[in-house]
């Protein structure tokens, strides 16, 4: 018996050796029910609790359910119930945690000594920063120190930086990378609606029957918003106006492949045609708007023929577009960087606003003139960065605004500058002219992202002191820093973001920051102490306390969210859209999940009417010519790359999902003309620089136009530094280049 058993055991062992069905490698991939509504998860990664927080990449503002073990994030998946993303996420969201775990994290303050950045104690770095900044301010005036902030930090931190910089340190000029993405939309809304107020809610994507997307590649830039369009049950007509046959254009029902920078002609011709046909909402125009007559007259020259000539779109197709809008019951207009990053972007955005107003497509489900925002907290930055405007949409130039803020913050009004900040490009000009001597760069990477990059990288060394506050030691800008302050990132701190549809979402602390890295919030607290203005920020003790201050600042403004009952209500509700004013009752406010603005036809201008604004379209500042025959377009390359890639390049998966090297999309016709094939090495040459790239021949590029994604650092050596006159937003989208083939 015993021998039989032994024999069986041996046989089993042999069998196991011959066919191993189990073992450590098999177990490595086993799954276990994850509980918390998760379904099965890898056994190695079973959470002991979960929590939902808003994603830290784009302004879609998806809810991500973070899987926690011992309080620490071990994995994540999209939050099923979150009203924004409904259980889905783009690759960046899925890989959000990977940006935190890299050897390139800044783990200690660094100070440049003898040309090299050396780790130092926080005390030394802060004392040094304080000493240099105050010294420069003493010699050159308070305004000689400036900051460049971001749309990537929570509102609480943005507000802290804004208050500390301006009220505590006496800095006059600060701006943020939101200038590069949303300034145009903000300016357009302010002029037209009286407040920077994107009117929509994402549900509008699902309720439209005509969706017009201008310069917006949702499939790549905002995949979750494209998801919302796909959920639209009304079989909407989807119109994409874009020179490129983008992924979105391919998926749309109608693509208007206008010549680069001619969208304004097209929109004006459509407006003119609608007016001509009388396809306008006259009662609404009369009740709720002003300036229509002047607008109507201004449109008269833009006939279908004129627009066809300019845009390259045949007359009948432009007519078809105006018919679509005329016949649509719920038409929504959406735009992104194709409009914003343009020398006449504000007017283009306002043309879309005008189309929505004149057809009465505003304030109703499935309508609106809607700007889709880029960065996770660009909307928070627009309200609370305290740079080009005073807190919560106020104006530094207005005494009553300054008084109100001084009162709310309990500070001396003398501490509040009486002018709005210079714009980003003017701060850069200030470095050249010597009026700006020190720069504090927080959570942004201008050495990659700024237009005409070579000029900026020539200018930065002129600064007497460059302080960079970042998560990483290796960003293009961090490498140039005199003082580097190591920052904690998304997931390592608390606060709130405001997404594209004005939804305030919550950030949570689910990872430990590496080494000595500190949340920007704590860094600002320390800088305040170091500058000797710590007392001013005694109330700013933690992010939620600052959130209450922001609520106070918002009270009575269009963005009033004083009715929110703390972070916990935001958490429970899956984010809360502004406005959400305090109704004064005992009970907690109960805002519905999806709300839009202007349902009553009243706007935020003094007259409560929306304004029609138009201006004659201008020609491209740098049109192609014989020497530079091609137009270079720029934009998002893939859904797995984010801006200057400081975060997305940390994820091996995201890296694998996008080309690692710079490439240029070129049409088949131009490729044939140049005698090159896909994969050829070429040089893209503009008046400012020459950049090597790999050619990618694609039917999506129009002859005469080439495209390079913005994620590759060298791209911005080529771009032409022109700016929208109103918003000061750089016109990244188009400049003249030529292509030289290096090897076919």
């Amino acid at each position, binding site marked *: 018996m015993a021998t039989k058993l032994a024999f069986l055991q041996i046989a089993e062992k042999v069998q196991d050796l011959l*066919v191993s069905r189990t073992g450590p490698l098999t177990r490595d991939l086993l799954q276990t029910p994850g509980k918390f509504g998760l379904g099965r998860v890898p056994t190695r990664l079973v959470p002991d609790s979960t929590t939902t927080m808003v994603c830290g990449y784009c302004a879609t503002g998806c809810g991500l359910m*973070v899987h926690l073990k011992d309080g620490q994030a071990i994995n994540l998946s999209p939050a099923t119930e979150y009203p924004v993303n409904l259980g889905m996420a783009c690759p960046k969201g899925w890989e959000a945690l990977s940006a935190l775990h890299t050897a390139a994290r800044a783990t200690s303050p660094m100070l440049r000594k003898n040309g090299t950045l050396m780790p130092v104690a926080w005390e030394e770095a802060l004392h040094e920063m304080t000493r240099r900044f*105050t010294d420069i301010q003493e010699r050159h005036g308070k305004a000689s120190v400036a900051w460049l902030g971001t749309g990537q930090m929570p509102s609480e931190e943005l507000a802290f930086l804004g208050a500390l910089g301006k009220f505590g340190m006496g800095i006059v000029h600060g701006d943020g990378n939101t200038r590069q993405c949303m300034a145009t939309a903000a300016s357009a809304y302010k002029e037209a609606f009286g407040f920077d107020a994107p009117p929509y809610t994402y549900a509008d994507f699902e309720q439209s029957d005509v969706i017009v997307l201008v310069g917006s590649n949702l499939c790549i830039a905002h*995949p979750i918003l*494209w998801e919302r369009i796909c959920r639209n049950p009304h079989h909407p007509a989807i119109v994409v106006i874009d020179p490129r046959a983008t992924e979105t254009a391919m998926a749309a029902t109608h693509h208007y492949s206008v010549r680069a920078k001619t969208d304004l002609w097209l929109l004006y011709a459509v407006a003119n045609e609608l007016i001509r046909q009388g396809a306008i909402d006259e009662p609404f125009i009369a009740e709720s708007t002003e300036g229509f007559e002047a607008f109507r007259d201004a449109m008269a020259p833009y006939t279908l023929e004129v627009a066809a000539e300019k845009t390259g779109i045949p007359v009948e197709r432009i007519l078809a577009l105006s018919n679509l809008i005329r016949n649509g019951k719920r038409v929504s207009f959406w735009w992104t960087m194709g409009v914003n990053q343009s020398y006449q972007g504000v007017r283009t955005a306002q043309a879309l606003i005008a189309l929505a107003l004149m057809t009465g497509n505003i304030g109703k489900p499935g309508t609106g003139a809607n700007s889709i925002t880029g960065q996770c907290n660009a909307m928070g930055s627009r309200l609370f960065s305290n740079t080009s405007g005073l807190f919560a949409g106020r104006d530094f130039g207005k005494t009553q605004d300054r008084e109100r803020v001084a009162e709310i913050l309990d500070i*001396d009004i003398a501490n509040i500058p009486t002018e709005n900040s210079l714009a980003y490009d003017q701060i850069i000009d200030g470095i050249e002219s010597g009026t700006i001597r020190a720069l504090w760069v927080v959570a942004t990477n201008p050495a990659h992202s700024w237009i005409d990059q070579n000029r900026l990288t020539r200018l930065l060394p002129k600064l007497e002191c460059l302080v960079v506050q970042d998560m990483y030691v290796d960003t293009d800008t961090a490498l140039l820093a005199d003082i580097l302050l190591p920052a904690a990132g998304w997931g390592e701190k608390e606060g709130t973001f405001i997404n594209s549809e004005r939804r305030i979402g919550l950030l949570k602390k689910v990872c430990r920051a590496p080494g000595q890295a500190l949340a920007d919030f704590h860094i600002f607290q320390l800088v305040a102490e170091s500058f000797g203005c710590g007392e001013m920020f005694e109330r700013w003790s933690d992010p939620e306390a600052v959130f209450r201050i922001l609520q106070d600042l918002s009270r009575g403004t269009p963005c009033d969210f004083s009715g929110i009952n703390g972070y916990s209500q935001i958490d429970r509700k899956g984010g809360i859209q502004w406005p959400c004013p305090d109704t004064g009752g005992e009970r907690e406010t109960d805002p519905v999940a999806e709300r839009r603005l202007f349902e009553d036809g009243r706007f935020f201008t003094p007259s409560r009417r929306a304004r029609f604004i138009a201006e004659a379209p201008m020609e491209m500042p740098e049109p192609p010519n014989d020497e530079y025959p091609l137009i270079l377009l720029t934009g998002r390359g893939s859904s797995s790359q984010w801006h200057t890639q400081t975060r997305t390049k940390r994820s091996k998966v995201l890296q694998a999902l996008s080309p690692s090297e710079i490439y240029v999309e070129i049409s088949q016709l131009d490729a044939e003309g140049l005698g090159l094939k896909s994969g050829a090495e070429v040089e893209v040459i503009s008046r400012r620089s020459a950049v090597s790239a790999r050619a990618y021949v694609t039917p999506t590029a129009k002859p005469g136009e080439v495209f390079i994604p913005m994620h590759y650092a060298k791209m911005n050596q080529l771009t032409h530094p022109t700016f929208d006159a109103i918003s000061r937003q750089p016109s990244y989208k188009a400049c003249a280049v030529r292509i030289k083939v290096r090897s076919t």
Partner: protein
Amino acid sequence: MQGRTQLAELPNSTPSPPTNSGNFAARTEKPSPLRLTESKGRLATPLAPKVRHLPILSVARRLEQQQTLTAVDAFSRSHETDPVPDQAQYYRRLLPQALPNPGQQYAFEVDLDRCTGCKACVTACHSLNGLDESEMWRSVGLIQSKTASPARVQTVTSSCHHCVEPACLKGCPVGAYEKDPVTGIVKHLDDQCFGCQYCTLMCPYDAPKFNAELGIVRKCDMCSERLAVGEAPACVQACPNEAIRIQVVDKKTATELALAGNFIPGAPSPKATTPTTTYRSRISLPPDLDAVDGDLVRTEHTHLPLVFMLTLTQLSVGTLLISALFGRSSSTSQPAALLPVAVAFGFTGAALVASVFHLGRPLLAWRAVLNLKTSWLSREALSFGVFAKLLLFYLVSLIPPEIVTFAYQSRFSSLQVPLGVLAGTTGVIGVFCSVMVYVATGRGHWRASCTSIKFFGSLIVLGTSTVAMLEILSPSAGVVHERTMALTLSLLLAFGIWKLLWEARRLRTGTSTDFAADRLMARIMLLRMLALVKTRFALGILGILLLPSVQLFANIPAAASQLCAVAGFIAALGGELMERVMFFRAAPGSRMPGGV
């Protein structure tokens, strides 16, 4: 100035002295010794110009706050058990209602119109399956039309196609693949795998992925654990546009479709394995669609251990055969016959050692012979394993008593001829199996004619140059055997030159060449490894010419001719090794459409 005056009056030692407890809060209650003062400017200057008395900063407290995680206490989800996953509301309709019937199986179905290339499926697969940092089982590629009107660019998501006739399963030497009899899901047994990566060459779609850290291959199993309990695979759960679903397909229909060539443009032909994934589109796909990376010039893995294994086994078999054919008859001069066999045995050993280095889990090398039924790799492993042993016995049988005596020596001696014949035959079978290992992958550039010429060509070139070198290095009784040299060198010259010319002809990239695969391979060689190509030909020519040139000059010193012989042999071996490096490195990959 007023501000400064006031400042000067401020005590510069105000930071409260550290309390005994060292408690942060206590120490930092008054963190700032310097206060803002009102002045004519907007802000008072808080610091004196010369001597700056710096405040004590509450760095330690901030660092401590930073390291305290708060999400769990404040917000984490308390309820633990949910019978149905939350996401089920979205994916329920994307799953089949019942298990497949006999003759059916599960399959992916992709709605191309809904796929816009966001690639969430790839990341979800990565996160929800707990894959290693750079491991991906799903990919999203791009196919595009060649003409601009109508321009069509289509993203294509793909993973394992759970083929009806899985090539991975057929090729796996250790039987680490199983096709589930009910669901048809092709599963990989991770603990059975020994990391030979042959499945990565067998699969036309690049589905199995080698994980170098673990030393094994892993792949998509359609989240079979999830499917078993009614949950959707990660990719299905994660697609924002519901482009991926699981369906039940008839295997027979799938086979018919595959044989008709029906799959998706830009992908390898479905005929060999019958992939079951269905790609659907309401808009018909233009006929000129192709993968954007279809003719992208890129290099593949070199598989260096395989380069050595192949080249050295071919050298060994060649040496054995050439010495047997052209050498002095063994009965008359055993010591002279002994040397080539000893050398062949030595190189065989080296080849087998090299092959083990190729494995992710070398200790399991013995498993290589477990799938003789369908795997050419198993057959190759067995053949060379047996060849090595026969070669050893043959070698022993050749040892004459005058050198060393041992038990059963005469019995061994008597088996000399059958042992030699057996060893030679097994060796040739081994090389044939080597050829078949690559032919079985179905890849154009590894087709039978090309691979045979390369492998058997190396056998002849290296066999002849080894035998010739040995003859020069160790002439029997001080005299080089004329017949051996003449025959060996003629064959080396004639065949070596022919092989080089044949290889050179493959470098033509013009459209006249019949095979697209050859064209692409030539482009890869010329654009990415031109130096290697040049060196290969230089060494090849040297290897062919050096040895015969020794014979032309009868009066050169023995040492010089021996040096020439060794140099010629090394050149020939180096040349063939480089040819083999390019065999792998310049081989166009077989995969689903990739990205730009």
